[in-house]
């Protein structure tokens, strides 16, 4: 019993401590407007080191440097677009979680639609075929002597 309590306590302590270990220092901006823009921006950029996390969620030094860069630019009066351009011109569209629709990113934006059309068409064909097969099965008496494959 005692050992179990200790184990549970240790585990809880570890689980509680983990987020604290990765705590990310956000900057405090002087106005609520700047704060909102800052937070929107850091959520929109990819951390180039961990690649699947945003600058807002990444604990690595490079992400901290980039957050500081964004803060500096905001305080200098740069627009969101200027800040985006600054990073895109150095890291490419890859750094944006929502890349713009341009020639090089068209496949990225269009492929889900293309896949949806392909899938929907395939599904429609199968459903149509199945329903005519059922209709025919209901019309004609089944000749058990024929092998199954030859009926389709």
């Amino acid at each position, binding site marked *: 019993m005692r050992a179990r309590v200790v184990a549970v306590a240790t585990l809880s302590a570890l689980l509680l401590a983990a987020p604290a270990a990765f705590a990310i220092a956000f900057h405090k901006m002087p106005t609520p407007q700047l704060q909102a823009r800052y937070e929107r921006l850091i959520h929109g950029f990819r951390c*180039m*080191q961990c690649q699947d996390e945003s600058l807002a969620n990444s604990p690595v*030094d490079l992400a901290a440097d980039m957050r500081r860069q964004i803060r500096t630019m905001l305080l200098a009066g740069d627009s969101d677009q200027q800040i985006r351009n600054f990073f895109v*011109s*150095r*890291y*490419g569209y890859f750094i944006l979680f929502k890349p713009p629709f341009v020639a090089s990113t068209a496949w990225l934006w269009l492929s889900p639609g293309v896949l949806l059309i392909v899938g929907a068409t395939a599904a429609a064909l199968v459903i149509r075929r199945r329903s005519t097969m059922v209709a025919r099965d209901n019309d004609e008496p089944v000749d058990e002597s024929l092998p199954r494959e030859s009926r389709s």
Partner: protein
Amino acid sequence: MRYRYLIPLAVFAVIVVVFAVGIEQSPKKDLVPSPLIGKRAPVFTLPSLMNPQRQVSSSQLRGHWYLFNVWGTWCVSCRMEHPELVRIAHTGIVPIIGLDWRDSRAEALSYLKQHGDPYQRIAVDRKGNEAIRWGVYGAPETFVVNPRGIIVYKYIGPITPQAWRQDILPHLPAAQTVAARS
């Protein structure tokens, strides 16, 4: 139509092949191509590692080919490529300019004393602002810059003898020309 039930299996097989190729190629996929290639290298003026009173600036480098190597003593891959950098420096083919990224001066100096110093000049980027201007996302990264200050190539990761010969050297003009100019 007899083997129609094999179609999903065939589709599955195609997906497996696509993923297998994707995983096989994944080390290369980690490398994000730099949009800075063909563009002007960032203009910079930074303190020199060797003498913090002095500065290293891009204007001093105009008219010369150079390698711009981003490194730090904390970076394991940089230690791997270091002997090759020393060897390249000995050939005299191209000067190497270092950017000591997010490092401590004392550690950088003792590291160079211990492993040799391949750099013609070393600029210090203590806070990491300059690395972002070069689009750096992990050390080591090495840029090839031409005399007009244009980045002609970027090599990501530790430079091996093979990488030097096959990937970097072909972007430099004939060795003698560079040696004469620099």
